[in-house]
């Protein structure tokens, strides 16, 4: 099922994500997918997140699809040029992938092969544009395809970026290039998210708020120091630091955040970062 169809039905869409393993043992990834299966509309499969080499997101998407879990195939521009990207997108459609999330990708220096050649032949905007063109039956060079995909195209945006305006300009470019929905970077401040939505809503494209599960106060501080566009306010860090049961506190915080932004947007995207098993409890607590 394409996410665009769910949005068209007026549904509040819920997605989460799994990360492919470093290696060939897919059991944990598939178990995580199974745990979420009945509770979410679709599951993102990350593409070598943080530039760390892993099992590929295309094959992982297929493995999840075979188990009845709707994949959102994440594609970054870091590792493949326009020939490989277009080819992988055709392959994805041929095996039943319906949803694609188009990203630029982290720089290679963040991962375990900092000496690798960074590609970035395309970027998120031109990847969206070229995927839209595939949908319309032509490749990027204007050559006709023998059988075309019909992907639902997703993109990302950072609501807490400072300054926000360049993000909004790029978001607008992504919409014009073909983005049909957005998933946001993790948001911890409903007021900031509201200010962002106030400007983004004019674009008329569904936005899913990103919710990161806090695992500890240390993780929150680490993200504040190191992760672009993520800011965990002090009261939340204190709440995690003084928690007797970190899991329960984390679930409570996530549910509260969802409650705070639910009416502003068209869905949520839960990023469990290792706590995939707690996603159902978060959704229970949030009443989703």
């Amino acid at each position, binding site marked *: 099922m394409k996410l665009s169809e769910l949005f068209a039905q007026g549904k509040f869409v819920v997605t989460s994500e799994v990360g492919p393993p470093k290696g060939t043992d897919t059991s944990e990834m598939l178990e995580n997918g199974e745990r979420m299966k009945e509770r979410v509309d679709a599951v993102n499969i990350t593409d070598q997140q943080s530039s760390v080499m892993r099992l590929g997101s295309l094959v992982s998407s297929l493995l999840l699809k075979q188990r009845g879990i709707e994949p959102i195939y994440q594609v970054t521009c870091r590792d493949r040029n326009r020939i490989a990207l277009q080819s992988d997108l055709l392959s994805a459609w041929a095996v039943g992938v319906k949803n694609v999330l188009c990203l*630029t990708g*982290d*720089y290679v*220096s*963040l991962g375990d092969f900092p000496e690798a050649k*960074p590609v*970035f*032949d*395309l*970027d*998120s*905007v*031109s990847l*969206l*544009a070229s995927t839209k063109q595939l949908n319309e039956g032509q490749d*990027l060079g204007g050559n006709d395809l023998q059988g075309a995909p019909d992907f639902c195209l997703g993109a*990302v*945006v*950072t609501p807490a*970026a*400072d*300054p926000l*305006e*360049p*993000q909004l*300009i*790029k978001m*607008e*470019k992504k919409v*014009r*290039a073909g983005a049909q929905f957005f998933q946001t*970077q993790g948001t911890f401040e409903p007021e900031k998210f509201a200010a962002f939505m106030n400007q983004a809503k004019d674009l008329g494209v569904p936005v899913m708020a990103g919710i990161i599960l806090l695992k500890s106060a240390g993780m929150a501080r680490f993200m504040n120091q*190191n*992760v*672009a*566009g993520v800011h965990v306010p002090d009261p939340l860090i204190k709440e995690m630091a003084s928690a007797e049961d970190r899991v329960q506190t984390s679930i409570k915080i996530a549910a509260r955040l969802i409650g705070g932004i639910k009416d502003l947007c068209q869905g949520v995207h839960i990023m469990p970062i290792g706590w995939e098993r707690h996603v159902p409890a978060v959704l229970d607590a949030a009443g989703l």
Partner: protein
Amino acid sequence: MLVSERKPMEEIKSFLVGESKVFLLGCDGCAAASGTGGEQDILELERQLEKEGIGVVGWKVIEFLCQKALVRRGLKPYASALREADSILVSTCGIGAQATATVVGMPVHPACNTISLGGIRGEWQGEERCLECGQCYLDITGGICPLTACTKQLVNGPCGGAKDGRCEFEPDARPCGWQLIYERLKSLDRLDVLRQAPPQLKDFTQMQPPKEIRSTSKWAIDIQAKEEVAAT
């Protein structure tokens, strides 16, 4: 200007395994300015090599090793030393080392690595860099090149990786190029130009020098070399 830096002695020694005598060649152009190819640099290299037990049969510093005619002329008086040498160790940029190798007909080892300047070719006392991409974006980017200012060479706006206006790659050393572009465009009241630009797609064939320019400069260098040979 091409900036070079001396390779570690261990690496240089690994090039010279099985050889007993070497001729040193320096360059009084960019390499001298880089502290790798000037006279004092070559004398220091000679001291270091002899300390390692490597015999140096002679040395010469030539102006502009990138000019093959000058290399030929400069090495002419050293014919006997070169016959004695197993190889030439060249302390300059990659262009000078290649030009020397083309001219001498004997093994040439590079003593240096050439450091990327992010695209600059000619000398320019500023921080602007041009990648000679053949597809200038400066109009939509407020006169700041996204190919040299952005680590990912993005041409459609910033990625999500910048934090506090700094690039995710070496935040201590690099500002986010797109932050600079944004601020410039904003100050020029030209953000709409960026907003309305269609998705930009890099054409990498344009990063190759045009055929006529390649043949012209090749022609110039070859003619120069031939004239030098004829004159000697």
